[in-house]
């Protein structure tokens, strides 16, 4: 059959699929042998060791096969082999090379491959470091690889059952019904691929998915260690590696989430870094639970308490990653999310549901089986102990996660709710406000505890010292709150409280680092990460509380809003402003002027718009500050013949960002070229009014020299001296030329232009009645500024840098803690032993 088609490259696909099969079988083999190694460990050590060697070989082979799959797919994409469905639907010839990697994660199969790749790399590290827990943790990791491997199989049973999707599927197999594939030379008609979604053509989109997926992948390790601990019944050896991997997972997943926020902020125009979008929530929730589990694990390490909570949280965190995958990949969120992936239909839906059920069964089943044997401490912890408040903090984080996921999962439970209540539930009308109004209380509690627990000691804290420290920190925080709150005009009571607790976390972390830890670097992990967290809360509060649009439109008709509609809605609706070409429009303390565009759209149809912002001094009327912003937009992008897709442009100050994007622009390719208008001038001082600006005629100049026209000896040249004044107050000298060639044998006219004003001036003719009465007809052409406009939205985010800086510092703190753990060697604290 294949031979019937001309011009196909079938080898890479065959190789690629071979690698898929190899990686799948190797993972299966590795799972089985690791399982055998684990189960014979206590009875037959040498037999167990030979199983272990086989298992390692299997896993290494599996990793190599994954690298080969990646390379093959990369080969298919970079060589533009459009006979493959994946290359055809996610890339095109004009796609810049730097975005070729993004093609991997635009598609379902590529992102599963990325996830698998990270698991296998992490698996290799676990293999080397897990010691006596290797067989059990690796059995789990290899098993998850088998599960992920099924996602790439692309097996069909009959018409209705499909398992996985093969990334090397041929285009003609993906679209069997299309008539084009009946001709053997169909490759001649496939000129180009579908191309990459333009919102993914952004550098954040090249780096953010790998980081996020590494974060997802890292959550598997604590899961595997917890299962291994339950499996062996040894609840000590897993502590140290689990803390280290949870720290790393928290750091990387946190970075990935905020990079996603940065991507949304830099390249999507939904007006901010966080919109409580279901896809964002789905990655935040596992992080919250992971952080809760990390803290209870620290409690367990030092006091022997909270083991069951730790295991529940860490197992849950990884299960939530799968649940997120289920929410975002199956299209179930379809109608509630702005940027959910296109669903792959029912096959994936049930596939992921089975995976989720299976992993939950392993985790929950083992936990229930061992529940009675888990070491517990009978006595009660004291109120003034670190473990008590840290536990409360972890529980609050978990409750926050439950709240967020409940609202996000609306499409999952809505059908059930409809059966019970008869109501067809929809998401809140204002989701951001709904989330903010509940999560502010969580932020308040967590901010307070992040500071408070630092000063507490495990088991018992000296009350007098504690109160003294708290009093000092609280005092400084109150002063900060008053200053910031007054300066930023924060008045809503709960946000004032949040401001206070954020300051409290920041100040307490500094005080703890200075006073208690004496700035000893290797111990600074907790104080640095808590400081970062406090700064994140502060940054979120400052940037969103006073976020405001400066592009408020006042020219349009005012709609009569019903009383039930929020005032916010009315305000929101007027945030777009029309900027005609060359006309300054007031925006906040600035005047914004649209002064041009990159006019020749590239082949990807991206146009950059030049917008000048001037800040004027009100009294002196001089420009105090001037800067340019270049928001861009794809006008009628490929495959979408209407509308535009815009990327924002942002002016960064240390204390605020001015964030702009294009909502609408005229399509220059469709705009009509304006015609010439004729004007008569006679005396110096005659004025011609233009569509934008005006010109003054200064007189004729005979035998004018012009570099563009070297006049011959018999030519008569006459220039019209003109000064053109633009709307900004600038003036431009012009001299359109009129030439009588060879003493009037023929006429020649040389136009003059002012690019800035888009003005063309032609000296068309002149009329001599007497030597004193000479008039000239001057023709002008200028694009109507009202035909060339952009609609711009401009927002101000105050102190957003506090947020970005906070994230970086927090992640840095995580790494200090990891560094300390790694360098401490095998010395686990003896708290567990003592407590028992």
């Amino acid at each position, binding site marked *: 059959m294949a031979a019937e088609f001309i011009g196909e490259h079938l080898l890479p696909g065959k190789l690629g699929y071979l690698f898929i099969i190899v990686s799948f079988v190797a993972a299966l083999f590795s799972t089985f042998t690791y399982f055998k190694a684990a189960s014979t460990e206590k009875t037959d050590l040498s037999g167990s060791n030979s199983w272990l060697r086989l298992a390692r070989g299997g896993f290494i082979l599996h990793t190599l096969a994954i690298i080969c799959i990646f390379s093959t797919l990369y080969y298919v994409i970079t060589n533009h082999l459009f006979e493959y469905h994946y290359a055809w639907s996610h890339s095109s010839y004009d796609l810049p090379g730097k975005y070729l990697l993004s093609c991997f994660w635009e598609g379902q199969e590529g992102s599963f491959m990325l996830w698998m790749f990270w698991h296998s790399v992490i698996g290799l590290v676990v293999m080397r470091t897990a010691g006596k827990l290797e067989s059990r943790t690796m059995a789990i990791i290899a098993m998850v690889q088998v599960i992920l491997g099924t996602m790439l199989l692309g097996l069909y049973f009959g018409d209705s059952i499909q398992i996985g999707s093969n990334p090397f599927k041929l285009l003609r197999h993906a*679209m069997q019904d299309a008539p*084009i594939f009946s001709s053997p030379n169909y490759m001649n008609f496939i000129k180009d691929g579908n191309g990459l979604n333009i919102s993914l053509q952004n550098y954040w989109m090249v780096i953010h998915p790998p980081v996020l997926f590494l974060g997802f992948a890292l959550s598997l390790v604590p899961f595997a260690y917890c299962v291994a601990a339950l499996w062996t019944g040894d609840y000590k050896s897993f502590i140290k590696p689990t803390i280290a991997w949870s720290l790393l997972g928290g750091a990387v997943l946190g970075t990935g989430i905020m990079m996603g926020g940065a991507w949304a902020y830099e390249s999507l125009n939904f007006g901010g870094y966080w919109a409580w979008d279901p896809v964002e929530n789905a990655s935040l929730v596992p992080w919250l639970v992971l952080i809760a589990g990390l803290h209870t694990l620290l409690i367990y390490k030092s006091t022997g308490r909270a083991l069951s909570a730790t295991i529940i949280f860490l197992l849950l965190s990884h299960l939530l990653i799968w649940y997120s995958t289920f929410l975002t990949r199956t299209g179930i969120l379809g*109608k509630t999310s702005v940027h959910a992936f*296109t669903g792959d239909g029912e096959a994936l839906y049930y596939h992921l549901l089975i995976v989720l059920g299976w992993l939950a069964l392993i985790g929950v089943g083992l936990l229930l089986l061992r529940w009675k044997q888990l070491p517990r401490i009978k006595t009660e912890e004291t109120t003034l102990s670190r473990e008590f408040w840290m536990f409360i903090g972890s529980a609050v984080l978990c409750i926050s996660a439950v709240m967020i996921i409940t609202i996000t999962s609306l499409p999952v439970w809505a059908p059930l709710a409809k059966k019970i209540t008869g109501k067809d539930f929809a998401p809140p009308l204002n989701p951001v406000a709904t989330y903010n109004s509940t999560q502010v209380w969580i932020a308040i509690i967590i901010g307070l505890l992040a500071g408070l627990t630092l000063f507490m000691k495990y088991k018992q804290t000296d009350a007098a010292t504690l109160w003294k420290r708290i009093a000092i920190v609280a005092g400084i925080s109150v002063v900060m709150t008053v200053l910031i709150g007054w300066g930023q005009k924060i008045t809503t009571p709960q946000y004032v409280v949040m401001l206070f607790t954020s300051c409290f976390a920041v100040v307490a972390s500094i005080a703890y680092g200075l006073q208690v830890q004496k700035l000893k670097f290797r111990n600074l992990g907790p104080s640095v990460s808590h400081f970062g967290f406090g700064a994140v809360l502060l940054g979120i509060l400052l940037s969103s509380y006073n976020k405001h649009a400066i592009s408020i439109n006042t020219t*349009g008709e005012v709609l009569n809003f019903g009383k039930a509609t929020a005032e916010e809605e009315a305000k929101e*609706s007027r945030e777009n402003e*029309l900027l005609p070409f060359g006309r300054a429009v007031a925006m906040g303390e600035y005047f914004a002027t649209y002064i041009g565009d990159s006019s020749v759209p590239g082949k990807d149809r991206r146009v950059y718009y030049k917008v000048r912002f001037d800040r004027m001094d009100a009294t002196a009327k001089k420009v105090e500050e001037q800067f340019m912003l270049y928001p861009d937009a794809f006008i009628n992008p490929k495959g*979408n013949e209407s*509308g535009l897709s815009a990327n924002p442009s942002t002016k960064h100050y240390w204390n605020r960002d001015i964030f702009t994007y294009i909502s*609408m622009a005229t399509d220059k390719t469709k705009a009509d070229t304006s015609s010439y208008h004729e004007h008569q001038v006679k005396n110096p001082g005659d004025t011609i009014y233009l569509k934008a600006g005006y010109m003054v005629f200064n007189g004729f100049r005979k035998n004018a020299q012009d570099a563009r026209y070297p006049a011959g000896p018999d030519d008569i040249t006459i220039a019209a001296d003109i000064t053109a004044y633009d709307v900004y107050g600038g003036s431009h000298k012009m001299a359109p030329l009129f030439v009588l060639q060879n003493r009037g044998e023929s006429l020649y006219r040389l136009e003059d232009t002012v690019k800035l004003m888009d003005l063309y001036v032609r000296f068309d003719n002149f009329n001599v009645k007497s030597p004193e009465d000479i008039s000239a007809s001057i023709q002008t052409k200028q694009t109507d500024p009202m035909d060339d406009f952009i609609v711009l939205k401009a927002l101000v985010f105050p102190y957003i840098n506090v947020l970005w800086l906070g994230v970086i510092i927090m992640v840095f703190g995580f790494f200090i803690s990891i560094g300390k753990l790694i360098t401490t060697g095998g010395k686990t604290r003896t708290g567990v032993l003592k407590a028992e």
Partner: protein
Amino acid sequence: MKKTHITLLLLVVVAIAAISATFINFSTYETFNSAAKEPGKSYHVMGYFDKGKGIHYDPKADPNKFTFYATDKAGTQHEVIFINGAPPRDIDKSEQLVMKGYMKDNTFVCSGIQMKCPSKYKKDMVVGEGA
């Protein structure tokens, strides 16, 4: 009972209270007719863009407003006034719209739209047949 348990119990109670409080905020999916029963109250309405009647957007008059016609799931058609900005990309290609807003004087005043666009596979088919 341990202090931890009591505190946890309290937290859970507060959490359940908070979650149920947000239920009051949940909106419902309605049709134009059922939304018209309470004019001025905002709902979600699912419907389809009328391609024949197109979009009317005059940014010179008001850059924040455009109008179009939509048919809801029950088959009723109404004019929709969008008051929240410029027309989103590909609205005329959408398979389905979810519109947030309220009925007023026989028109639907809309402040938010979510579009369901044709799935990749459907688009594939069209391109394949056209090629």
